[in-house]
């Protein structure tokens, strides 16, 4: 199963993944229109540890505790991807309470958002991976 992996050795801390993610999930076709003047809410975040930076996004766990914990059945794992049915999510945030990576967050509407590997959005391929200038985030079998 392909997954998004992080090669922190190559992460430049440029934060482009965050912007590419926010853009890909904005539903808009122009990045400027999507992001200009906005506070972005990406599903991938750069964390820093000393001089080292790395991107963190949903691991799409084998046994995702967010799915087990979801009270509405909005979260499910399909073909290896933990997805959200935004119609069903009521915004109880139990998933945020349980995700060991801190990879689910609240969206502007009060429900949650998380990385869905861009499978359904304009990018169609993880935008963080596609836009990473140094292959610090990759989408591959390991």
């Amino acid at each position, binding site marked *: 199963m392909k997954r998004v*992996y*992080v*090669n*922190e050795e190559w992460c430049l801390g440029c934060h482009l993944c965050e912007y590419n993610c926010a853009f890909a999930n904005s539903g808009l076709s122009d990045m400027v229109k999507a992001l200009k003047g906005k506070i972005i809410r990406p599903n991938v975040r750069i*964390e*820093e*540890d000393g001089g*080292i930076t*790395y991107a*963190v996004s949903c*691991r799409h766990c084998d046994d995702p*505790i*967010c799915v*087990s*914990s979801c*009270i*509405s*059945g909005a979260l499910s794992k399909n073909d290896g991807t933990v997805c959200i049915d935004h*119609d*069903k999510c*009521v*915004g*109880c*945030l*139990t*998933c*945020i*309470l*349980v*995700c*060991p*990576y*801190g990879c*689910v*967050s*609240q969206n502007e509407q*009060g429900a949650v958002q998380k990385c869905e590997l861009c499978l359904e959005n304009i990018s169609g391929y993880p935008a963080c991976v596609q836009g990473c200038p140094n292959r610090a985030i990759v989408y591959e079998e*390991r």
Partner: protein
Amino acid sequence: MKKFVIIGNGVAAAGCIEGIRSADSDALITVISEEKHPVYCRPLISYYLEGKTDLERIKYRPDSFYSDNGAKVCYGRKAVRIDAEAKKAELDDGTLLPYDALCIASGSSPFVPPFDGLETVEKKFSFMTLDDALELEKAVSRDSRVLIVGAGLIGLKCAEGLHGRVGNITVCDLADRVLSSILDGECAALVQRRLEENGVSFMLSDSAVRFDGNRAEMKSGRTVDFDILVLAVGVRANISIASEAGAECVRGICVDTKLHTTLPGIYAAGDCTEGEDISCGMRRVLAILPNAYMQGRCAGICMAGGDDTFDNAIPMNSIGFFGLHAMSAGSYFGAELGGEMYENKEDGKIKRLFTKDGFLTGFILIGDIERAGIYTNMIRNRIPLSEVDFELLKENPGLSPFGSAYRMSKLAN
């Protein structure tokens, strides 16, 4: 072909079905559902009232769930007796269901104290089931005065659900604060304030003692006039069928880490059980959803002969009122019990982290709940504080405090 019977049709039952199917693809599964609805999650009923979900979206699983999993559901039926010797469950219509393994997922029921004059109240409701919510919905009107007895999770969520649909809402509770089981005073005050800002009235350290028609007499002597009474005092695990069959029960049905009861072939999962809370080491009824599902699934796997263990239950709650989120998990030990607390308060937000004996044992977050799961995970998985940079972690839940090896194992493998 093995036969499995599941008593109950809640989230634990759904987990149980999925657990069985992950280990046994052709066993016969029978589900005894007292409620006439396919599985839904009870906490959603307040969101139903609020309009955030509806009868369609409230379904926990797709309509094809039972047929996809080859489970037969007996709707409106109740299991009345289990013959553990003969391995048979008897239904209220006399049907005898033989089983190879059985799972009791009977959940809990509202606990209603014996109020004087309660019988004189015309419109009184519990707030547990979807049917409760549907009836309540029918009963309320724009100018209804609602009295909710109980300022716990159920009572407050009911209040939020009814907000905007009724004239006024009063919540009373004997405790001195809201959500007394999970929040301390300061945190509770924040939540209470948010509710009050939205028009909910509180009568705390006070409660109804007697009812007379549409009037409640309070312990303090005050009276409250209401049109609708919601009783949300507490819940109790449904253990009778288990205890009558001879299973050991205390406040809930006693189960081990395989969700096995003390009777052969009989498992139990969900709100009706009690097991160890690893955040404090005590046996408790942990009537929360994540546990219900995970227990159900573990029970299902074990019933079908697979191997699974559920041994890291902790209490945890995520609850929000009018946009203010409160999260809590684990246990809080005061200094007198050797506990320590880290606190960070700012402008309508509170973060409290509780540690004891080198472990994070619990936390309360009000307002800023971002990445709370990183703390939860530390409690559930008993990650020693010595292995993390707790100073960093206190400020900023992230992966950095766990060090590079941990991070690499999670992100690069």
